[in-house]
């Protein structure tokens, strides 16, 4: 588009050859970004003055959180375990379900255009819904508690892993697949033996990555009544019991750190 309106630059080399150089769209893009920033600043009433004057108030709550209420641990570990359960189960089921869905969405596996587009649109819409909204809807259907949280995480994982997986499948090397078809294997069998080994490492590492993120998400699902540690977080914030909030966050950070370290280890081994 841009290049249609802005004529290219011509340069003549000493030996008479003519080179045309497309004009860089950078100035236009910078201009657009600056306009975007100015509009957004207006819209959100962003005021750097306020920030400079009051930035220290941000740390009020941080100060109140220290030291954390260590004794709170006794009440904490059970909902924390719930949170981990929720995200673990949701991640496992979601990743498992993502496999057939991704197969159905991969244009090199399925011949029906309609089927492919339907599944892809389904995944896109699923990914669009913020987890909190999915969780809220789930609480209406499955009742308040960890089931709803699990369902929300399941759907999010399905959408996320599903998309990455079908992209992987579509980019997979089809040579072996072709050889297997020529050896009389069904498409789905050829997928199992030619494509799966190729996408497996990425699939597993995506699932692990997703699990990691889900623990963080699960921590706030309590806010919409989806169980886990989020409920305690909400309650402690309500009582303005920031040392308890500090303890919750501390435990959460430790958990996330552990999970991240473990999954980092596995991801390195997988790829």
């Amino acid at each position, binding site marked *: 588009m841009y290049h249609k309106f802005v004529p290219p630059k011509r340069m003549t080399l000493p030996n008479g050859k003519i080179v045309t150089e497309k004009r860089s769209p950078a100035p236009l893009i910078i201009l657009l970004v600056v306009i975007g920033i100015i509009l957004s600043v207006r819209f959100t009433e962003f005021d750097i003055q306020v920030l400079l004057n009051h930035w220290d108030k941000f740390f009020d709550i941080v100060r109140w959180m220290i030291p954390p209420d260590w004794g709170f641990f006794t009440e904490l570990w059970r909902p924390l375990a719930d949170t981990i359960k929720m995200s673990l189960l949701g991640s496992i089921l979601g990743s498992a379900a993502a496999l057939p869905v991704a197969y159905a969405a991969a244009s090199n596996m399925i011949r029906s255009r309609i089927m492919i587009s339907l599944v892809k649109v389904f995944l896109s819409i699923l990914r669009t819904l913020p987890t909190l909204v999915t969780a809220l809807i789930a609480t209406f259907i499955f009742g308040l508690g960890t089931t709803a949280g699990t369902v929300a995480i399941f759907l999010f994982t399905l959408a996320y892993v599903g998309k990455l997986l079908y992209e992987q499948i579509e980019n997979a090397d089809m040579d072996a697949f*072709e*050889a297997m078809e020529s050896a009389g*294997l069904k498409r789905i*069998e050829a997928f199992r*033996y030619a494509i799966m*080994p190729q996408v497996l490492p990425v699939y597993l590492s995506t699932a692990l990555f997703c699990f990691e993120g889900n623990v963080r998400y699960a921590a706030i699902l309590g806010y919409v009544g989806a169980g886990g540690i989020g409920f305690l977080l909400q309650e402690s914030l309500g009582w303005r019991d920031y040392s308890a909030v500090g303890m919750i966050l501390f435990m959460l950070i430790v958990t996330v750190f552990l999970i991240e370290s473990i999954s980092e280890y596995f991801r390195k081994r997988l790829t």
Partner: protein
Amino acid sequence: MIEFREVDKTYSNGVKALSSINLKLNRGEFVAVIGRSGAGKSTFIRCINRMHEITSGQLIVDGTNVAKLKGKQIRRFRRRIGMVFQSFNLVTRTSALHNVLVSFVPELPLWRKLTGIFPKHNKIAALTALDQFGLLDKAYVRVDQLSGGQQQRVALARTLAQRPDIILADEPIASLDPVTARQVMNDFREINEHMQIPIIMNIHHVEIALEYATRVLGFRDGTIVYDGAAKDVTPDILKEIYGEMEHQTHTVLEEAHAYVS
């Protein structure tokens, strides 16, 4: 055993890749298919095991009209035809043994298909096939750690494990260095001579084609312009197959020469 009767093949984009092919291929033959790029060689080979559909005419393999087969029949039919590819088409990231084992998949019960746990007799058969190509000690090595020649031999072992009645090969040596290429060609000759399995091979290297094959098919623009014994091929015939353009023929022949030097 393979018979083409007035076979035409037009791709969905309108390209006519084969026209009025009439041909009879016999048991035990080693057929080299030569021709310029785009002449229809790959299309020809792939029509035989229905990787491509023919547009009109009849293709009869061992008395079966290939065009009439459906679903499961096609797959059963394909199992009888082994195919070897230019880029080996192995499952990377898995062992040589695993690649050979895959050829048994269609015969497995569902749970084995899913879990990928193969019965012992399959493993022995696969190891035997690898052993035939001197790859027994590489059985548990990942194929991406093998050299090109070894990879093509794993592919050959996989094809043989299928116990095919015919072997099709689409430029099996195109990505190999000269020395390895000859080793692989020797393997093909061995299979052809000792096991009496007919081989139909697309090949760009004229010299090699003439050296190994018993029969040569020259393709040009989708039709067969030469069909005869390898020893009868003359430079004039090559000129006919590869076109009038002096330069073109020249380089092709030169290449062929450089290759075997």
